[in-house]
């Protein structure tokens, strides 16, 4: 993005507080330098490591005492476990429970990354398409492979809507085929787009806060947006997980 450099130069010349709202999403090497190779530790690496440590701390350390009266951390760990377990069981059925570890991993990673991204000056992992597209493609591949392994070519019945009138079925098959292949696109872009847009909006309001006349309004707006983003951070992780369950259900029970 060429505009960032010019924005910074412009700010240096005029002495004003000008920053680009998308600056927060730049991937930077942690220990200086400009080149980014696949092994370079960047702020993405740092926050992924922090996310994994937080998940480990919450789930393993939190529940390791196995208290009968749970501490706050243990209750959160148990609630998260029970919440996802119930979701998988309700949507995919009993035989879908063997995918519970996968779905739980996805949910914990996304929800932790979303909440860590809300810490000021931190980096939002899930705002990058590179991260969410990998997650969504893995779900897509899992669903396709599981569907074909479990049902063989009968899995293609997912596209042949047998409850529809015969004349409509080829048309529906085309629509179903398109919607099947658009799934990873919408699945990943929904998560990254929501997070990126929300964080960019906060930064836009933060830019207004430098103007004395509107700064009280903008500080209030930042507070309100932050509250909304807390909700969005959870809801988007929930939506990603529940759609994963719905897609897995299609692979396990392709009943049309």
């Amino acid at each position, binding site marked *: *993005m060429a505009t960032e450099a010019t924005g910074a130069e412009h700010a240096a010349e005029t002495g004003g507080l000008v920053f680009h709202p998308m600056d927060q999403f730049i991937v930077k090497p942690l220990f200086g330098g400009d080149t980014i190779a696949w092994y370079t530790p960047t702020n993405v690496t740092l926050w992924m490591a922090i996310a994994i440590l937080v998940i480990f701390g919450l789930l393993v350390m939190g529940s390791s005492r196995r208290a009968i009266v749970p501490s706050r951390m243990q209750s959160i760990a148990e609630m998260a476990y029970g919440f996802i377990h119930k979701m998988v069981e*309700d949507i995919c059925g009993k035989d879908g429970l063997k995918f519970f570890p996968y779905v739980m991993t996805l949910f914990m990673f996304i929800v932790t990354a979303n909440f860590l991204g809300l810490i000021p000056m931190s980096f939002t992992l899930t705002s990058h398409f590179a991260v969410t597209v990998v997650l969504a493609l893995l779900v897509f591949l899992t669903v396709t492979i599981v569907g074909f392994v479990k049902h063989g070519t009968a899995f293609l019945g997912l596209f042949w809507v047998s409850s529809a009138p015969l004349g409509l079925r080829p048309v529906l098959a085309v629509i179903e085929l398109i919607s099947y292949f658009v799934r990873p696109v919408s699945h990943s872009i929904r998560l990254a787009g929501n997070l990126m*847009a929300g964080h960019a909006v906060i930064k836009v309001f933060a830019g207004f806060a430098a103007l004395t006349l509107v700064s009280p309004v903008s500080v209030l707006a930042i507070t309100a947006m932050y509250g909304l983003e807390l909700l969005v951070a959870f809801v988007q992780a*929930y939506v990603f997980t529940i*759609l994963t369950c719905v897609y897995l259900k299609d692979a396990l029970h392709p009943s049309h």
Partner: protein
Amino acid sequence: MEGDLAYIGAGLAGMGSGIAALGVGNVAANFLAGALRNPSAAASQTATLFIGIAFAEALGIFSFLVALLLMFAV
């Protein structure tokens, strides 16, 4: 000139986000109307609500993406 047109296009694509908001509001409003008629069935349908909202919202996010692409990539 072409860059200016891209910015106009980005603004037009941004309208899609607002129109998707209508769709999301429609889903939520109908869910609320149904939930108030039969509150006992509401709790079991929140998952469906979120799936519906997610699908309606996806298209708004697509238009947001088109706007971003026009501004930064094209």
